[in-house]
């Protein structure tokens, strides 16, 4: 390699300058093409949400007239007002918020404890458990919703507690979707914390739980925030479990509520549906807007820490 570099030096100055200049031109061309394609893909990715916004500002008459789908001639906030003053829609929002917050709390407690235990402590079957957690992802919710439905019905016969058709049954099932991934994220973060730190804490007389809360949690905070955001987003967006387990209007969560109640038989009100869908997408979007870096960092922890 050094020999070849010396060979380069032997060449006269002019060609080398040409090579440098062409390299800069190459980089600039690559940059322009990159920006061009980025714009194309940005348009592709952002068109549906933009269209949702445009449609949600239209009155029903304007939508039916179908003169110019991509622009609003007479914007109106009527759809939003109708939704936000409708008790049905607000019930959906409240149910979704309750379910999501509770699920996040449950998930974070269980995942943090389990991640700490799996990354730091050894007990009989701990490595098998770590693989097992990943393997549960192979059992998709689309397999489990049927037996779970039956199990809840059976539990009602046995215990008398009505699980089905109550929003809190979702708080029981959603954690199965969030815990594996959150545990995985946090094992990654915890594993990267040097062992000297907990040894130092232990020498100072801390118990394991104190080590967890006073040493690990602050250091792994980005991972914890990312896991929290992930759990919230997944819980908020769930469609199949609530569709299968809740039917009464006052127990529905947002995604199912919008799809099943705003679409009444054969009368669609697309302005309201789009407004409802956009409002339903707001919480994850808002959280994402403020905490984007944590979210991305947490997701990609696996990519770099392996």
């Amino acid at each position, binding site marked *: 390699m050094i020999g070849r570099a010396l060979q380069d030096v032997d060449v006269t100055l002019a060609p080398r300058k040409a090579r440098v200049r062409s390299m800069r031109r190459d980089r600039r061309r690559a940059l322009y093409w990159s920006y061009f394609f980025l714009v194309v893909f940005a348009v592709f990715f952002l068109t549906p949400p933009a269209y949702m916004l445009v449609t949600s500002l239209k009155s*029903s*008459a304007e*939508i*039916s007239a179908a003169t110019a789908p991509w622009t609003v001639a007479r914007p109106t906030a009527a759809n939003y007002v109708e939704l936000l003053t409708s008790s049905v829609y607000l019930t959906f929002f409240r149910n979704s918020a309750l379910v999501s917050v509770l699920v996040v709390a449950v998930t974070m407690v269980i995942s943090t404890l389990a991640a700490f235990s799996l990354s730091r402590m050894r007990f009989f079957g701990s490595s098998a458990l770590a693989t097992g957690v990943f393997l549960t992802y192979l059992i998709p919710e689309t397999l489990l919703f049927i037996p779970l439905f039956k199990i809840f019905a059976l539990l009602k016969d046995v215990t008398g507690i009505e699980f089905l058709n109550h929003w809190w049954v979702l708080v029981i099932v959603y954690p199965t979707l969030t815990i594996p991934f959150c545990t995985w994220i946090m094992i990654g973060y915890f594993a990267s914390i040097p062992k000297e730190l907990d040894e130092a804490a232990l020498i100072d007389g801390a118990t394991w739980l104190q080590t967890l809360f006073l040493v690990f949690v602050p250091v792994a905070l980005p991972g914890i925030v990312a896991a929290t955001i992930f759990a919230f987003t997944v819980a908020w967006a769930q469609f199949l479990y609530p569709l299968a387990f809740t039917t009464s209007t006052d127990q529905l969560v947002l995604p199912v509520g919008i799809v099943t109640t705003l679409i009444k*038989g*054969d*009368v*669609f009100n697309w302005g309201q549906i789009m407004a409802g869908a956009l409002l339903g997408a707001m919480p994850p979007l808002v959280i994402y807007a403020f905490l984007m870096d944590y979210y991305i960092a947490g997701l990609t922890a696996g990519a770099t820490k392996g």
Partner: protein
Amino acid sequence: MYPADGPPDKALADRWTWDAFLDAARKCHKAGFPFGIGFGTTADSVDSAGAMFAAFGAALVDRKGSIAVDSDATRAVLDYAKRLAAVMPPDVFAWDDASNNKWLISGKGALIMNPPSAWAVAKRDNPKVAEQLWTFPAPRGPKGRYQPGLNYFWGIWKFSRNKAAAKSLLAFLSQRSSVERLVVASGGFDMPPFAGLRDLGIWSQVAPPKGTLRHYPPSGDQIVSVSGMPAPPAIGVQIYTQAIMTKMIAKFVQAGDSASKVVAWATSELEGLMRT
């Protein structure tokens, strides 16, 4: 049929057959405003297909529960559907319950098979289309004039704790005055199941145009039937929800399968439905 309050025109009613329907569909298609009968898997499509099957006398499962789909009547219906689909928009096979409403209200279509919800929405969103809409009975086929319908009913659970109160509520709701209030509240959409209750004034009153719903209540030789008849209820329900009839039509027309293949497929599906 038209104008609303004119004397019943028997000659016109006799001429209004599925063949005349096809003729009109061809002419409207040529004029650029086709008919729109959905052949998807939702209720509206299954209702329309059921009426067609019944009008031609094609039953999937007979009254005793035996599979009867392999018949000349079935082949006749499939053939007819193919000729009709040729003059309708190509995506009728994916229409859901709202598609035909939207088709009519957008001004693109000339006819749909639907209760008055389409007219009611048009009145709100596109009055110019609404004032040109008219509701009238289904065409007559070789075996009769079948009107698609879906009955809803109220019941009292065996284990309910206040049966007397429930019964008196139901009795009250079945009174003519209550029925009238329900029908008026729905803008004429709800249809009382008993012939004696079908002379309420609302259908003649709503406008524009005046009399547009006058012929919505079934009368004369119309037979209201549920798609899947005369199959026993448990099987009929599955024929309906699994949309066997519209899928048969779609297979014959869109996928181009032969009639024998379609009948064989339907037979195997029906056998599946009869499993216990």
